[in-house]
């Protein structure tokens, strides 16, 4: 499997939100403004990549040798939660401007199942470390793409005349459905 296919598949064909149903809470929750969406998207790309790389090492050097694969979930989430907190502290200290723009999204990522999902998918697919990193960047980018597109649509929809009951979250979900339908067209382009 070449890396190009891996990237295309992760962004479009198996889009983490629209095809895999992962990371939906932040997808709906932070897609009200495109500025916020971009911030959240970048934070996810960053954390997901780091988390996938670290969890890959944990799995490879700790869980497999000791035959503890069933502890995957708990170790991964612990790693992610600590990582998020660590990254937050690190950014605050080392790169305050970045912290100001991404910092507020970091705590939200702990509960973003896309991050844990990406780490677990990498294990299920038995990717190499390089593949893991590429896959997680691409998946994060796919998340960001979907998020920004939905946010842009919602900004316009806010102004449209729609039945009262549909305003807000319901319409956002329906829009997400239509986007997901559009992404269906990528099926078969790469596996």
């Amino acid at each position, binding site marked *: *499997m070449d890396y190009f296919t891996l990237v295309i598949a992760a962004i479009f064909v198996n889009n983490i939100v629209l095809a895999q149903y992962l990371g939906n809470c932040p997808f709906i929750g932070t897609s009200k403004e495109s500025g916020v969406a971009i911030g959240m998207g970048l934070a996810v790309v960053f954390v997901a990549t780091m988390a996938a790389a670290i969890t890959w090492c944990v799995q490879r050097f700790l869980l497999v040798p000791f035959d503890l694969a*069933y*502890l995957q979930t*708990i170790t991964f989430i*612990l790693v992610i939660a600590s990582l998020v907190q660590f990254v937050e502290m690190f950014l605050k200290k080392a790169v305050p401007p970045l912290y100001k723009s991404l910092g507020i999204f970091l705590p939200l990522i702990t509960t973003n199942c896309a991050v844990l999902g990406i780490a677990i998918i990498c294990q299920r697919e*038995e990717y190499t470390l390089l593949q893991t990193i590429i896959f997680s960047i691409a998946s994060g980018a796919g998340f960001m793409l979907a998020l920004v597109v939905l946010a842009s649509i919602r900004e316009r929809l806010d102004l449209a005349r729609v039945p009262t009951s549909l305003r807000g979250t319901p319409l956002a979900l329906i829009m997400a459905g239509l986007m997901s339908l559009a992404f269906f067209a990528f099926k078969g382009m790469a*596996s």
Partner: protein
Amino acid sequence: MREALRMILVLSLICGLSGLTLAAVRQATGPRIEEQVLTYVQGPALNQIFANADNNPVLDRVAIDLDGEAVTVFPAMVDGQLAGVAIEAFGRGYGGDIGVMVGFATADGSITGIGITTLKETPGLGSRVVEPEFREQFGSRPGQDMALQSQGGDIAAIAGATLSSAATVAAVNEAIRMYSRIKDRFPKRWSDQDTP
């Protein structure tokens, strides 16, 4: 400093406790999980091979020692007699190992059929090894090594999935080798008994 220590202590303790709990649960459920996995992963393949068996090959499975490694053998009984056994073997495919369950007739050591247990091949190409057209080529033939047509044998490879086909063949050959080394022990193991 005290706070940091407390932080470390509490988190480590909680982790340790959860490890203990989980290990215990794991221990308790382990055998049952194994059986479930066999029933739902190997079971369907066995049913394809021994359509007429009147026992449950999964429940009656036996681990046989072969050069220090345990080989799981699934016996099939017909009318209380051991009619055949199945052995799972793996071949390296395009997307990972392909698990193949190979069934042998105990009477003459011929292959009764094969079933695919696990595979991660490309959908539409390599994954077509599960299709009957491909699988049935292996049925009812003597238990000796075989090869793809391209390598001088008589197994028709799936178009565009030579690697997956070859992996299947390799797995079958592996199973044949294992079978030939342990087949002598079967009569002893299932001598006229209904159940082991």
